[in-house]
């Protein structure tokens, strides 16, 4: 609180970031300990969580006031004009302080109180149980076992305590192998395909340098191949570009030498590193945030950013992995450098393509808990939860969500969840409101006592799962273990407008098919239930009335309650029709929302009229 000097500023203007005229909303800005709140004159509220703020910028003073631009991690950009420079300066300084947190304990999650009691909190954290998940996959079994080697985080600090390894991999092999791998991240099981008996394993790069070998590591890989009875060889996927992997050799790291490992097939798949991804997103946002963008500038900017190329590379890698498992029944070991960024992307997407469970709402939560949270994707560093090294920030998890979104576009009926679910998860990865994504690894999370001091996001999402349900989901589309085979041809990758322009309302379709369908399917379900209920009542009643007839009206009171009950449940369907219409009505579609709109023709004024066709915007200045 000591950072807040001004809590309320009146007469603040909120500008539309794409408008070429200075159309704006007037309102009041409030600064709280956790949020920045803007209430406009029509009482609409815009809440911005301090943790969501990625950058605050004060622009040069103008005649109307002091502009303040706030960029958020959820890609919201707000542009305020504060009338007095001193207020603007105060808010700017406060936000700068509030958006930078030095200690985990200061994050919102530690003060957020959703009014749950302790047992609810505990139950919430137990909702996702990874031991249960491995059981579902079919391990432990004859070939795979739970290893207690990392029970005290002694072998690898960034791995979870419970790890599954081949039965033939003894403790000395594990220890030896871990010493030969970057950050001790030795090969462990990520996903087991019970029909093919093939496994997705993950690790970090070997410390091979130019010639180093490690017998234990070679044994480890052999153990993984042998744990697959249906195939002799296994794939080793290095998800880095070959050049990067080779450069690592100079630093004593590198990749597996095929000559030293028996029966491996080694493959580079060429996903770029976190720094390339960070600057790619930066470029993408620069382009998409440009005012009055032309189609050609947009497309060339999209191309120059390389963003879609990277998304395609990630999905292509996952497709390669899936083919090895589904077509050749071969196990695959995936790694990159440290094995927590690209490896997490490829392993989780691979599993998502292989196993329809991960395409359900609960399954997707499990997938994120397993491949991202438990295996130590550095959420804190990558999402800049604490004020830290800006070079560690990278949109790796965002890319994963975007890849999933691309799949949902290609397979509209295969996923139980919808786009809103992905967006909501993205929101909370950055919000620091729930404990799940805090910290960089499980060990750190235990030290922070997150399960006692914070709440888990998943039960809250599950509570409102109605919002996240895909109304077109067809469980029969993908029975257990049905493979999705996406087409990764370039034109199938599209700019994710609803992610990067989620808060720019004027860009979206004015009528949402999804909401309509969702409501319809809800209503249909409700009606079907009503029908069932009524039919049950008919049966019951028929049974009763025959009983009544037999008993010759001895208990004539009996069927009466049924008759009385029926009308209310029957009336249910009447209000449905107007509800239906209400859903269909569109939001006000307004020229002012669109880019050709700043068209002020004032005939009364003197000529000449200068009309410019800048960026397809019809603008007339007199």
């Amino acid at each position, binding site marked *: 609180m000591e950072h807040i000097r001004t809590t309320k500023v009146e007469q603040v203007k909120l500008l539309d970031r*794409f408008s070429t005229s200075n159309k704006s909303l007037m309102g009041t800005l409030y600064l709280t300990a956790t949020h920045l709140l803007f209430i406009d004159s029509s009482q609409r509220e815009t809440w911005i969580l301090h943790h969501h703020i990625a950058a605050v910028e004060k622009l040069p003073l103008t005649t109307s006031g002091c502009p303040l631009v706030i960029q958020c991690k959820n890609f919201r950009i707000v542009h305020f004009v504060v009338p007095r420079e001193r207020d603007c300066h105060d808010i700017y300084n406060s936000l700068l302080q509030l958006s930078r947190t030095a200690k985990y304990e200061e994050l919102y999650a530690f003060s957020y109180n959703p009014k749950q009691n302790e047992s609810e909190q505990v139950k919430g954290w137990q909702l996702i149980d990874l031991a249960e998940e491995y059981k579902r996959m079919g391990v432990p079994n004859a070939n795979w076992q739970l290893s207690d080697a990392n029970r005290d985080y002694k072998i690898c600090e960034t791995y979870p305590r419970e790890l599954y390894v081949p039965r033939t991999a003894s403790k000395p092999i594990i220890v030896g192998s871990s010493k030969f791998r970057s950050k001790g991240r030795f090969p462990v099981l990520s996903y087991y395909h019970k029909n093919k008996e093939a496994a997705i394993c993950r690790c970090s790069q070997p410390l091979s340098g130019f010639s180093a070998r490690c017998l234990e590591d070679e044994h480890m890989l052999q153990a993984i191949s042998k744990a697959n009875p249906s195939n002799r060889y296994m794939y080793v996927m290095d998800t880095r570009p070959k050049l990067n992997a080779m450069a690592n050799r100079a630093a004593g790291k590198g990749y597996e030498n095929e000559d030293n490992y028996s029966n491996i097939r080694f493959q580079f798949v060429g996903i770029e590193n976190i720094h390339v991804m960070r600057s790619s997103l930066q470029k993408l946002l620069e382009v998409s945030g440009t005012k009055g*963008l032309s189609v*050609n500038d*947009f*497309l060339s900017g*999209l*191309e120059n950013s*390389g963003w*879609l*190329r990277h998304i395609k590379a990630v999905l292509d890698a996952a497709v390669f992995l899936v083919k090895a498992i589904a077509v050749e029944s071969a196990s695959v070991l995936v790694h990159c450098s440290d094995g927590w960024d690209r490896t997490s992307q490829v392993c989780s997407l691979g599993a998502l393509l292989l196993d329809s469970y991960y395409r359900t709402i609960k399954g997707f939560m499990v997938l994120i808990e397993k491949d991202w949270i438990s295996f130590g994707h550095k959420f804190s560093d990558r999402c800049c939860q604490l004020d830290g090294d800006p070079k560690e920030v990278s949109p790796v998890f965002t890319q994963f969500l975007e890849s999933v979104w691309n799949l949902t576009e*290609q397979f*509209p*009926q*295969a996923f139980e969840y919808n786009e809103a679910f992905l967006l909501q998860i993205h929101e909370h990865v950055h919000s620091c409101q729930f404990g799940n994504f805090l910290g960089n690894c499980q060990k750190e999370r235990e030290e922070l006592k997150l399960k006692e001091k914070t709440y888990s996001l998943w039960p809250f999402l599950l509570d409102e799962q109605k919002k996240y349900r895909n*109304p*077109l989901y*067809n469980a029969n589309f993908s029975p257990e273990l049905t493979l999705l085979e996406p*087409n990764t041809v*370039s*034109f199938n*990758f*599209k700019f994710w*407008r609803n992610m*990067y322009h989620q808060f720019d309302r*004027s*860009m979206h*379709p*004015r*009528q*949402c*098919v999804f909401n*309509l*369908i969702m409501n*319809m399917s809800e*209503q*249909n379900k409700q009606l079907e239930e009503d*029908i069932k209920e009524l039919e049950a009542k*008919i049966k019951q*009643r*028929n049974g009763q*009335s*025959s009983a009544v*007839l037999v008993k010759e009206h001895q208990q004539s009171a009996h069927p009466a309650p049924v008759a009385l009950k029926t009308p209310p449940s*029957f009336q249910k*369907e009447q209000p449905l029709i107007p509800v239906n219409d209400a859903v269909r009505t*569109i939001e006000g*579609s*307004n*020229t002012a*929302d*669109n*880019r*050709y709109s700043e*068209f002020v*023709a004032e*005939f009364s004024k003197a000529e000449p*009229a200068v009309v410019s*066709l800048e960026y*397809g915007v*019809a603008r007339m200045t007199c």
Partner: protein
Amino acid sequence: MEFAELIKTATVESVLLSCVGLPAVKGTLCITSHHLLLSSCPGGDSQPGTVELWLLIRNVDAVEKRVQNLGWYQPPRTNGSPRDTRLAGSSGTITLRCKDLKVLQLEIPGMEECLNIASSIEALSSVDSVMMMYPFFYRPQSLKLEEGWNLFPLEQYFQQIASQTSRWRLSDVNRDFTTCPTYPPAVIVPAAVDDDALRKAARFRQGGRFPVLSYYHPKNGTVMLRSSQPLTGPNRKRCREDEMLLGTVLDEGERGFIIDTRSAQAAKQARMTGGGTEPKSSYPRWRRLHRPLERGRPLQESFIKLVEACNDTSINMDRWLSRLESCRWLSHVKAALSTACLAAQCMDREEASVLVHGAEGTDTTLLVTALAQVILDPSCRTLVGFQGLLEREWIEAGHPFHLRCARSAYSHARLKQEAPLFLLFLDCVWQLSRQFPFSLEFGEHLLLTLFDNAYASDYGTFLCNNEKERCLCKVKETTHSLWAWLNQPGEKKKYLNPLYSHNALVIWPSVEPQSIQLWQGLFFRWIRSSQYLDEAWAEIERLVEGNKPPVKESAGNRLSQSLSDPAARTENER
């Protein structure tokens, strides 16, 4: 000319047909005067064959042939029957690239047959005489010839306007097509202007296309007019009648906009060749806005480049995006939508009347006026209303379909006057349908069908360049109308949008590049499988169907009956 002369080989057996996404089939290939047929007979010659392909030859845009003469080569597909070995010596492949963007391959045994077939298709597909085209021969049993030809008389459209204002009249000054050869016989003009003045004004406009009413905006009584460029020429000629005609459109003190679909510079340059624009001094109450829209050859090339890029499925992401950019198609979509929005905005928001023209007034002009009406007028967004709009603003208004749609994106022939303006219009309408999915009564399927039929059709609707030609060719008397076929109850259902609900508002689209999408349903129709998308769409239809009130009622009735009369049922059961 006899078609038979053009057909060198009428039938070939054992032809292998393949196209992307479908299994190859073998069968007998037949060429008739208008069709290419391939029927397969899996059960031997005695069984009736199933027709695998029924292709209108007019639909063929380019024929590419490749022959192999490999004596030692045994094609892997033959299984040693005597006839097959005889043919194994040579074979050829014909690739047919169609105007609807489909690509077919025919593998034909025998080099000579292959060459004959290819040249027959080439000859038949380039027959340019309108009267020889298939619509003049097509006689479906379910339709009557005269059906659908007079569904949207201009008189009817005029009556709607006349019921609200008496400032307009229906003129038959062009009844014998002498005033303007590309206008229909009847046009709507200001009531205060007599036919004589119209004739004089026509002489001042290119091709005689004097300003006529295109749309009356009932909300505020403003109008949209269209014309061709005025023939000001280098000497800045004037025409009192033309000035008067435009003057009477505006009330005292009112001003109007002229939207010129050329750049200011291009409009100025047009003066050198006798054209030009309305000078401010002669039309003081009209303000000119220049909104350059691409037309003609550059537009056709844009279309060709886009289709090329779409067909190259092996290109990487960067290459794809750069080709999508360099073809500029989406820029044209954005420009067309923005200009139409501008016109709509002038009328709806600024309450000013608008005159739209480019040079000839038959291409970009119609694109803008038609699109503005879809945006403004809910009655143009119904299935029937949209047909009426096309009839009024494209067909009768004299968009030269025969010239513009003679060739599509694959043709190797030298380009003459081809340009995909109609396709651009359909694409813009598709963009609207994506942004307002409940506001158009028709779906993507209709837009695709219209595209197909504009380029090659069984029906006469899109034949010829204008009404005068249609009269001369007796199109309305001797061909069937596409609308008659579309509006048959069974057929109509396919084109309806299940999500439609009447929306009386103006639909203002977003024209940000992030909001404009490539029309995958058209450009990738034959390239990628849309199975999952189609299934999802079928599910949407099912859900909507299940949600319709009648269904609910019937279920409700069934239940309420049985509930209300339990005694009757128990008695029956007993």
